[in-house]
């Protein structure tokens, strides 16, 4: 997979850059608001990038879907193929969940359903292998691994407590 360089744009968001197989350099500015801008490098000046497209949050998701899903999706899908019976899903932590403001440990997910939380996605950030002391926030996504039945149990648990 291509290497993506990532730099913070303080006050704006994050800037990503990568080089395509054809040798074209592509820049992407992800604004804090979720707005995204796509840039191509100027062939005469390696540091100047011309804006080609602005995408709202929704547009970006549409485009990503058309282009074949995100890297994370692909990798997870591949893993799921490799192990029979293993289910991977990511579950949103809804505003009304009783665990907003509590830690992962409080939810006792593994002891109650056998499912592991392998990562927490928070905004643009991913927290891999979270410990039981990690606090959950509204809008978090929990990436969980286990059996299909176990994951259904987690959905129920996150919703009802």
């Amino acid at each position, binding site marked *: 997979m291509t290497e993506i360089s990532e730099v913070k744009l*303080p006050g704006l968001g994050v800037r990503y850059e990568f080089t395509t197989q054809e040798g074209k350099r592509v820049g992407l500015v992800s604004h804090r608001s979720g707005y995204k801008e796509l840039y191509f490098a100027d062939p005469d000046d*390696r540091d100047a990038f011309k804006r080609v497209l602005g995408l709202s949050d929704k547009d970006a998701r549409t485009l990503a879907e058309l282009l074949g899903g995100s890297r994370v999706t692909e990798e997870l899908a591949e893993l799921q193929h490799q192990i029979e019976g293993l289910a991977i899903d990511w579950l949103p932590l809804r505003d009304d969940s009783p665990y907003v403001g509590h830690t992962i440990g409080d939810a006792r997910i593994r002891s109650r359903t056998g499912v592991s939380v392998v990562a927490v996605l928070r905004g643009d950030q991913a927290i891999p292998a979270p410990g039981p002391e990690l606090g959950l926030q509204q809008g978090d996504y929990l990436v969980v691994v286990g059996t299909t039945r176990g994951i259904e149990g987690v959905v129920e648990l996150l919703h009802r407590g």
Partner: protein
Amino acid sequence: MHTASVLLELGGVIVGLAVLARLAGRLGIPTIPLYLTVGLAFGRGGILPLITTEEFVEIGAEIGLILLLFMLGLEYTARELLATLRIQAPTGVLDFVLNFSPGVIAGLLLGWSLVACVVLGGVTYVSSSGIIAKLLHDFGRIGNRETPIILSVLVIEDLAMAIYLPILAALLIGGSTLVGLGTALAAIVSVIVVLALALKVDVRLSRMIFSHSDEALLLTILGLTLLMAGLAELFQISAAVAALLVGIMLSGPAAEGARALLSPLRDLFAAIFFAFVGFSLDPSEIPPVLGTAIALGAISAVTKYATGWWSAGKSGVGPKGRARAGATLIARGEFSIAVAGLAVASDVEPDLGPLAVTYVFLLAVIGPIAARLAEPIADRLLAASHARNPETIEEITPNPETIEEIT
């Protein structure tokens, strides 16, 4: 009769500012120098001095200063400030040394007091994040590789302001005596405590303040900011510093909301603030300091350019990008005026106000022009050096082997 004249004067000033804002848009220059000019024209010794609205304008200007610094703090979270500081500390040090010293040295050469020198250092040090953000946007340079470096410089200056302003406020009150230094130390400690606190509570605090009603959110944030500013003033820490810290402490949805809701208010009151700084000066004080302002402007334009050139080079940006980074950072504006405004209010040096205003006027106009011309000039120079020495151009094109691939 009194109400009528207040409204007429205030309306006149705001219409004047509006005309200038349009003119600035047409000419493609920042509004700050024009607002300063309108202040000069209507102020003490100007063509049409204001009489009845002075009190309102004074309070409006104070709110403008508070909102300017609050919005500056809002731009970045405490986390971003510290993360940037960790990566870009050498840039921050260079920026400070190169751009604070011209002001201090000029002050010393003019035979000013230590406090006045520290003020002038602040005026020459801090770039205008308002003008620069607009330049990056207008010239379509947000996606460029030098842009993160330009923004890092602004972030570190923001953090430096959080330390510098309380010191300045303490010096202005206590003079350069032991008492003044003690107050300054206390102010710095409280700033550090607040920043550490911000790292701990930013999410919770912001969630507490956030409201889905725009009206409630606007009133909450404006009210809290003014309250904190007032408290700080009571303890002689300076309202501006408190506003900056409140801005830094807010993050997430509350900060996003505040940015959208308070921007128009900031624009209005900041315009009044710039005009007010102009009001407090007599136009006849400008010509005697013009030569000094031009010299100081030229020197500190070069030192800022060097800061950008060096920092961008360190991050592997090519000559054209380095030229753009340097030239973009030249613009000084709202914060230089804010620093000078604090000093003018406490009357440390009669020439300080006129010098700072003239200086900012020059660099706010020259900065954007330099940022625009940096590209064609760099092209010329590169072409010339290419003609002389054909190998140099090779360094500019990226080497395909450096593009790493992980499969």
